[in-house]
């Protein structure tokens, strides 16, 4: 919902002088009709297109995402409480056999 989406973004800086001039009267302090979009909605991108390198995972670098995902089990958790309890519990059951 930003005005930049309409292509006026790049010119914003160069014309800040106009902004101060025009914002002097009370009537001009109109708020942009922002926040029309809902929180949970896919947002409009501020630009229409971008270079591949500006992507979250640029082409050719897909292999670099492996550290972001893990297998759903964990074998190195022997010190963790639940595993310990499980071992004790199993030992107890064994004792009953």
């Amino acid at each position: 919902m930003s005005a930049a989406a309409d292509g006026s973004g790049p010119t914003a800086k160069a014309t800040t002088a106009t902004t101060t001039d025009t914002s002097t009267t009370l009537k001009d302090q109109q708020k942009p009709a922002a926040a029309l979009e809902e929180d949970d909605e896919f947002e409009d991108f501020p630009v229409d297109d971008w270079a591949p390198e500006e992507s979250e995972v640029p082409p050719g670098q897909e292999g670099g995402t492996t550290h972001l995902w893990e297998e759903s089990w964990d074998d190195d958790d022997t010190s963790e409480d639940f595993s310990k309890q499980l071992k004790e519990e199993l030992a107890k059951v064994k004792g009953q056999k």
Partner: protein
Amino acid sequence: MEVLCREYWHANQEGSGPLLAATISPIAPPNYLNRLDAIYGDTNAASISRDISYSLTKTANAAIQYPNPEINSWTEIYSAYWYAIGAILAAEHPTTKPDWTKVYEAWKDVANTVIKGYSGGVLEAWTLPVLYTAGKHLRAFAIKADENARASGGDTSFNAGGLQEDIAGDFGKNEKLEDAARVINRMFTLCISDRAPLEESRKWGLYYTTNLLFKTYFKLNSIGLSKNILRALSASKTDTPTLEAFPRSHIVTFKYYVGVIQFLEEDYAQAEENLTSAWHMCHRSATRNIELILTYLIPTLLLTRQQLPSSRLLSLYPSLGSLFAPLTLAIRIGSLSAFDTALAEGEHEFVKRRIYLTLERGRDICLRNLLRKVYLAGDLDEEGKRNTRIYVKDFAAAIRLGESGASGEGMDVEMDGSAGENNDEVECLVANMIYKNLMKGYISRERGIVVLSKNGAFPGTGI
């Protein structure tokens, strides 16, 4: 009017769709905050059309031929725009009660004049961002109008019969957005039905308008309607540019919505493909969008690859961290009680995002991890091979522990009494695991043991 008209000619000179679209933006640009007031104050209802037509002609660089369909079209569009500005300024005025319904109706006229410009063949394909701006704000104003109507609520119950009240009430609550969906659908049709050669075809507007419809249908909770659009797209595949040829913002949004639709239809393999692709291609500073993509990709990968987000990934997106971390941890350690707690505590958020049912299926993975631990805790024989015969009661003990949570209180009592019954249940759970190919082996009921496969007892988990 001269400001508006100069902007118009400038955009034409540059051949810039975005600049042209900016001329009908209902939001003042940051560098010209009183743009709307200036345009509105420049004329009045009696002379608006004549003023615009005159100004457009006057500010043109070259002599204008008459009759000029382009000037006529834009005179219509800008007249409608002028009325819409009036409604917007009134709605934003601090002392009056905002009437967003009026804004919506006025903006709908803008959208309709724009549509007319395209269907009459006056507006060319390079001006498509104008169509986008018209559609985007139509939807936004419709949502505001409906919110407004709901807030002032109740006073529309002309139906005193009582019986039908609910239906009528339900139907009326998104009245303007449903109306907007029809207008946006016409925009989509404008794009898909264009037979012009590709370089100057409105087909380039297909994915933008599709995405706008998806957003609208999702908001209306009529996700099923998206299927019609997908069918139409696939039917016109042969004379449409490939998706990859479109701007990335169109592609990512499209893949996100298609991925979510497939996710909801439990077509997880396809969902994985589209969501992964959307995630990779998404602009790296569009954090919120990345979060939304991952919100669906995480449950998808849990089912398709039995993978979980790493703590590194979750730490990059704190809101995802609070959403998924407890569940992720529970699954990883195989604690059923922690899983149930996490699912119950996140229920509201999960249901809202429509991921509850998928996450619930993660309990199987959690159970698999628990049973896997029992197997790993078993003895090794002389040759260093792990014992593949596991007593059902061992599994039962693990499940009892897993379900009762970390505290061991009172467990011994339970163990004595209900062991027999429990074993039936446990056998059932194990059979289910085997059926789902999360475990390989068979149950020997007479001996009360589960015989696991010697190679790959828990497929895909390295043992």
